[in-house]
């Protein structure tokens, strides 16, 4: 198999679009079901995110007055494509994508794309709620990226490489614990889950940047959110979990680790209430900065 086939299969089949979407719907369902069980409800059946997506595809798309029709469709599409490409580069078990030097930097840039598209979508939708949500997202972005980027940079310093496979192959050390802490601290805000569900705060600013979105563009934004969730969770399992080399066990450990991480995020989201932008920003630039400095110091010393 040559490099083109391997790249194509990684983008389309696993862990790209098709495998990634299936996993995204599974993880979104785990989040909703677990949240429902913790609130004493029964929760949706496992096929719910899939049917939600299909239903939105089958709805009419209303373009709000004064909004560019091309932009309305291009932003969610760009978001889905970026999330799929990021996912295809992450060294999960069974990924055939050939590794190249510096793919870590490409993944980090691609992972910023969904948030960027969301901010642009909020501002371009001409809705007051959308603009408030976009401003909050942009502010929060400056906060959560401090511990997130520091965690990844600390691992890169330790591995003396910018290739994801080299990072994943580094034996676990003290730097991994500090970096995992910083990574986990940034994760709820990246996924816009409680206590950092500030940009899409329902009951407060309707649906944030997506208030004016409907039909196919909304379906694509939901899909890109799911793919982003899968990409971040599998980045964590690839970088911080010792998966070993036994083929079957590798798959099992990666899936169990991802599921446990999704459950942890849901647990935190259900147990907490929403912070304000100011509180969240202060949290990230005080405790988040502490975690970032700790991870970088340990990476420099050991």
């Amino acid at each position, binding site marked *: 198999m040559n490099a083109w086939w391997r790249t194509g299969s990684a983008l389309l089949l696993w862990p790209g679009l098709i495998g990634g979407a299936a996993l995204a719907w599974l993880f979104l369902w785990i989040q*909703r079901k677990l949240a*429902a069980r913790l*609130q*004493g*409800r*029964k*929760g*949706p*059946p496992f*096929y*719910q995110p899939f*049917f*939600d997506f*299909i*239903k939105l*595809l*089958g*709805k*009419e*798309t*209303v373009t709000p007055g004064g909004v560019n029709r091309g932009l309305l469709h291009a932003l969610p599409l760009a978001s889905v494509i970026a999330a799929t490409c990021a996912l295809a580069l992450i060294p999960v078990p069974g990924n055939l994508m050939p590794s190249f030097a510096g793919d870590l930097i490409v993944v980090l840039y691609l992972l910023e794309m969904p948030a960027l598209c969301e901010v642009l979508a909020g501002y371009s939708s001409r809705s007051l709620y959308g603009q408030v949500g976009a401003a909050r997202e942009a502010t929060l972005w400056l906060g959560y990226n401090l511990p997130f980027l520091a965690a990844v940079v600390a691992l890169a310093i330790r591995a003396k490489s910018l290739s994801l496979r080299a990072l994943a192959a580094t034996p676990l050390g003290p730097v991994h614990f500090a970096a995992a802490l910083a990574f986990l601290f940034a994760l709820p805000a990246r996924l816009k889950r409680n206590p950092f569900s500030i940009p899409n705060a*329902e*009951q407060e600013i*309707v*649906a944030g940047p*997506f*208030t*004016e*979105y*409907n*039909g196919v563009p*909304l379906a694509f934004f939901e899909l890109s959110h799911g793919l982003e969730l899968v990409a971040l969770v599998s980045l964590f399992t690839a970088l911080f979990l010792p998966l070993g080399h036994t083929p079957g066990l590798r798959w099992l450990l990666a899936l169990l680790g991802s599921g446990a991480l999704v459950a942890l995020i849901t647990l935190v989201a259900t147990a907490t209430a929403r912070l304000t932008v100011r509180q969240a920003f202060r949290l990230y630039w005080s405790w988040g900065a502490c975690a970032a400095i700790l991870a970088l110091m340990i990476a420099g010393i050991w």
Partner: protein
Amino acid sequence: MNILEKLLSISRRKSPWIYCLNAGSCNGCDIEIAACLSPRYDPEQVGTLKQGSPKHADILLVTGPLTLRTQDALRDIWGQIPRPKAVVAIGSCPASGNVFAGSPSVVGALAQVIPVDVYVPGCPPRPQAILVGCLQAAGLLAEGRTHDQQANREDGR
């Protein structure tokens, strides 16, 4: 009906997202809708989610006797819901005006302003009845039998 249409039809039945509108109600029906959305009845187990934006919704729940002041807002919000859409009238007021019938500040039955697909009678109706009304509306959406879908077919869209 080919396989894609069948899949879309099942999706519409399984995922009815609702938007609630108070058109001058005494709040009795709204309290019952809130009870219907509570963990005890949990509409999410049949896929029903309450949406904050009418642009995300499939089903419009209307309570109240439709006062003169709310009728423009009602038309506006009904127009904002993307097709296909259904309307469920909650309680006796949107059906007949109830005790407010004949009042100078009340328009009258909801069906004079927008087409109504399902009526849930009661003053106020039970939460279970509201949930059944939503599911009936979802069933109509799946079969393409809401007033809105039929009007679209007649227009040739």
